[in-house]
């Protein structure tokens, strides 16, 4: 079953003719993702790979192709506008790969999308991968395989590391979800965990967290009270010093809160086994 995206997803790529957009659209097409349209203002009428029609607007793209999911590969300064545009065009699920989006922009975007019941994944994320069905983002397809492990993470390449380890141990994935490394973002751990709990294909869950904020602590509470499926975790940043942004805008220990230690404590108290390093994760399910 999987969550959020599958072979029936009709994907619109915003920024399809840009450097990132074009490269990743080719990869998504190669994975047999159902990419039905692209948007680059001014390039309406063109085609990508002779397969995907390009439109000037998201509205025209949706009207013509029935796209029901959008992925955004535009630079940070254009990303909020792209999210508003897709939401207004009636797209119910938006995945924003772009990094460096200002926090105050994201506060407004998230509120706007919430008011219209539009779900957002990201920004600053690798997107979604339902192995064998849909690659909506930049998670390498060849490291994953279909299975019953749901995965949710704030990281990019650390996620790939864990997916590869699971696959190598014969543990395929239902859907891999990268929620991104920013402090103000779309769907969070609890939202995704609830979806995995309700998904018949998912039998167990891997959660990858990092320093900053208290989303992992809130997730721990949710796991303890609302989940029956087994969850294991890894939290990155045990060696991170306080007060320093560790790459991701959201990865910062501030005012005494957001440390890896606190998150690990909260998760273990909720019955979640926490790995000492990423490659240990598959063994934690034994």
């Amino acid at each position: 079953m999987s969550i959020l995206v599958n072979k029936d997803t009709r994907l619109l790529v915003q920024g399809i003719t840009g450097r990132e957009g074009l490269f990743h659209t080719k990869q998504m097409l190669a994975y047999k993702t159902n990419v039905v349209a692209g948007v680059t203002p001014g390039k309406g009428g063109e085609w990508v790979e002779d397969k995907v029609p390009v439109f000037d607007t998201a509205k025209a793209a949706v009207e013509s192709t029935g796209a029901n999911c959008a992925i955004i590969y535009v630079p940070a300064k254009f990303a909020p506008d792209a999210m508003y545009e897709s939401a207004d065009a009636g797209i119910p699920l938006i995945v924003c790969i772009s990094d460096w989006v200002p926090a105050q922009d994201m506060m407004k975007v998230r509120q706007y999308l919430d008011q219209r019941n539009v779900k957002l994944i990201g920004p600053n994320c690798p997107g979604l991968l339902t192995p064998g069905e849909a690659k909506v983002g930049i998670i390498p397809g060849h490291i994953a395989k279909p299975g019953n492990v749901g995965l949710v993470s704030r990281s990019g390449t650390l996620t790939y590391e864990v997916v590869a380890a699971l696959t190598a141990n014969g543990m395929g994935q239902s859907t891999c979800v990268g929620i991104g490394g920013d402090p103000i973002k779309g769907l969070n751990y609890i939202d995704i965990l609830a979806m995995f709990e309700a998904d018949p294909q998912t039998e167990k869950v891997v959660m990858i967290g990092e320093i900053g904020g208290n989303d992992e602590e809130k997730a721990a509470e949710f796991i303890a009270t609302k989940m029956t499926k087994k969850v294991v975790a890894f939290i990155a940043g045990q060696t991170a010093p306080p007060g320093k942004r560790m790459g991701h805008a959201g990865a910062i220990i501030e005012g005494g809160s957001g440390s890896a230690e606190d998150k690990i404590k909260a998760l273990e108290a909720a019955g979640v086994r926490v790995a000492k390093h990423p490659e240990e994760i598959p063994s934690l399910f034994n």
Partner: protein
Amino acid sequence: MKLHEYQSKHLFAQHGVPIPKGRVATSAQEARDICIELGGRAVIKSQVLVGGRGKAGGIKLAKSPQEAEDLAAQILAMNIKGLPVRKVLVDEAADIKKEIYLGITNDRAARRPVIICSAEGGVEIEEVAKVNPDAIIRQHIDPIMGLRDYEIRNIALSVNLPREHWKAFGQILGGLYQTYVDTDATLAEINPLVINGAGQLVALDGKIVLDDNALFRHPDLAEMRDPDEEAPQEIEARKYGLSYVNLGGEIGCLVNGAGLAMGTMDIVKHFGGSPANFLDIGGGAGADKVAAALKIIMSEPKLKAILINIFGGITRCDEVAKGIITAMKEVGVSVPMVVRLVGTNEEEGRRILADANLITAASLAEAAQKAVAAARN
């Protein structure tokens, strides 16, 4: 990015917030001159990007121009929590009747700006939060609608601000909020906002932290960056679009991806080593970026080994390999280097590195263990 008190106050003043008369001095003589301008009495305030300046002796009242000169000389020679004092703000001294804390920050859990106000101003707000949490008022603001007048009145009422001060308070809170929005701040704070003997409200201190993600649209603010805030390697790293944090240990780390970079540091520690740094080369880094990253790591004083961990999706292992070879030629790598390349073009990457004097590893755990062992020898 943090701004100094004098920079923050200047921005507040531009938005209609009353601040004390005064200006910045870089010498004791200048401080004396400003003190004379201000009528012979002034507060000498060190300008460094850390909290606790007062406790460290970096904020002093001068009751004469001579005292201003002496205190400024003292303070300008200080090093507060590792930062040299290069400037002092010489401000008119205030007759303080009441101190209020007023700040706006991003509440990430609520995904909204939050205004924090307390009638217990002038002290560490975190202390008040612990000891007397009811004394702190929090008001979330609708990010699309912005701050509304009735919300300002609510806050004034919640801190029992006397009616005669509401208008001035409204102007100040409105100005503070506008500053926060106009500069794309993650924090804009006045602590303390005082009511003085003449019944006026004045911002005695100011602090602004800017959202790094938004600096691209504030080139004028980006120019205000204090180079003392960061280690030289961090400044160098930013030039190349690298994320770098100094940790002072022995094993340098070069990784693609922030989460993986943190995970790599953690696993080095797990196997008994001490990471020298956090370094994320980002996605799709070319050979010259990798070479620059290696050179920065090579400048770490305690370096005993280097661990390169690449899991390439959009990043190509052959590009990383080329960067390693370039750096080895240009700088000369004098410590053992463990390289683990997985992902896009990994075969080509390994081929390029085959003749170089490197230790290879297949898994992350293996790479970390080898790096720790290499650092010990």
